[in-house]
């Protein structure tokens, strides 16, 4: 009974004791939420910039390789090596070239995302039914019109799946960007890596960001593919 009382008392006190006992402290979290704002937006910036650049490059490569199939294998090999290289190693291998900072982190994150995005765009194009393409050609579409009006829309589910994977993975990897001298939630996490409240808030925000981006891309896909809803 006295033990329970002691526990109740402890909770009644201000956040100070909770912090020194390394607990999960709602008071501390509320008081210190502002210290996560900047790292959070840094994290958003790193993720969105990297995925956007990665998508632009991967999509360009996929368009190039779509009509020239022999390019697929070498592109997959090169992006595969970039995907295999550990991001932390890439941060420091880039040190002599780009120094420390956002640029270095973004180059490493882009390099990592290329394989995921390229594979999915190519898979999307491959899964377009031959009948649809034939129908398009029969209607007199040129190869270019066929690409933008038939193949690309029908490839959207795979392309969007690739974007979702790339976005969530990049959120996770951007947590290491602080090692490259960029900010992000990883810096906030590492600032007090043994303090439970800090680990939960910084880690939790990263997971929330990943889930939010995932849902946003899903919603975007829903909005731009009305024919998929009409079919079911």
């Amino acid at each position: 009974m006295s033990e329970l009382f002691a526990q109740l008392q402890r909770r009644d006190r201000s956040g100070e004791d909770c912090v020194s006992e390394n607990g999960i402290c709602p008071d501390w979290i509320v008081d210190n939420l502002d210290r996560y704002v900047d790292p959070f937006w840094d994290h958003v910036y790193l993720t969105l910039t990297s995925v956007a650049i990665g998508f632009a490059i991967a999509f360009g490569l996929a368009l190039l390789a779509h009509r020239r199939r022999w390019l697929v294998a070498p592109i997959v090999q090169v992006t595969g090596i970039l995907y295999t290289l550990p991001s932390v190693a890439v941060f420091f291998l880039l040190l002599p070239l780009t120094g420390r900072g956002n640029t270095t982190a973004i180059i490493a994150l882009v390099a990592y995302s290329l394989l995921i995005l390229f594979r999915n765009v190519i898979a999307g194009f491959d899964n377009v039914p031959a009948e649809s393409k034939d129908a398009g050609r029969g209607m007199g579409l040129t190869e270019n019109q066929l690409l933008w009006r038939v193949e690309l829309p029908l490839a959207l589910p795979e392309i969007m799946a690739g974007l979702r994977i790339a976005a969530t993975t990049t959120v996770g990897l951007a947590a290491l960007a602080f090692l490259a001298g960029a900010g992000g939630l990883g810096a906030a996490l590492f600032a007090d890596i043994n303090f439970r409240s800090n680990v939960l808030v910084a880690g939790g925000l990263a997971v929330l960001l990943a889930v939010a981006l995932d849902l946003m891309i899903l919603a975007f896909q829903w909005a731009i593919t009305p024919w998929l809803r009409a079919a079911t």
Partner: protein
Amino acid sequence: MSATLAFLGDFGDAFDYIFNSRESEAGGARVGGSELLPLLWTHLKVTGVAMAIAIAIALPVGLALGHSGRGAFATISVSNVGRAVPSIALIAFFVAFFPSTPEFWNVAVALALLAIPPILTNAYVGVRQVSRDAVDAARGMGMSSIQIVRSVELPLALPLIFGGIKTSTVNVIATATIAPLVGVLTLGDPIISGTVHGRAGQIGASIVVAALAVFAELGLSAVQRAVTPTGVKLERGASARAPRLGTLKRRIQTVP
């Protein structure tokens, strides 16, 4: 011009750090060269332990779920959630919440959790994509469920299963690099303790870690090819352009 020279100089110095030990930046201790071997050993040990735990959990569960056809939702959820949790947050979580456990085990368990989703997903999809005709034929021959899993589904799923193990291994090797942040001295130590090892140590250790990841990828790819049943290889050659996973591919993303 001078930038190019500085660039070459940095990498030359890094290679010198990898092959010859030197005095640390702060003086006193020796770093680099053969001093890297204990770090390499810890790196391999933590990777091996994490992979053993992950395979022991994910493989039986993936095979069982794939065989029964249940648990697609659970499998997808695990792999999605697994991707969203940053590795450093998971390691920090274990270190902060289990302070009395040795750091090595905290890191090994955190890495094992990171390694589980790709193995689980690939084992599940690998078994699901086995032709129902082959399974029916085996059942018609009087095989029990366990025999079907062992003699039909497992061999035919092996290429994808090894794909998952390969991806996880490379991922764990990469993530073990940040273990020194919580006191487990892997090859990431020279990278993270830049003040002790200097720029050459940071770049040199990065080269070693990158080489380790690439070797693991190439080695396990060779194993993956070796365990692919000849029949599956022939079938792939014949239908290389046809989508292999059909509708499953749209719902569950496997790794190469």
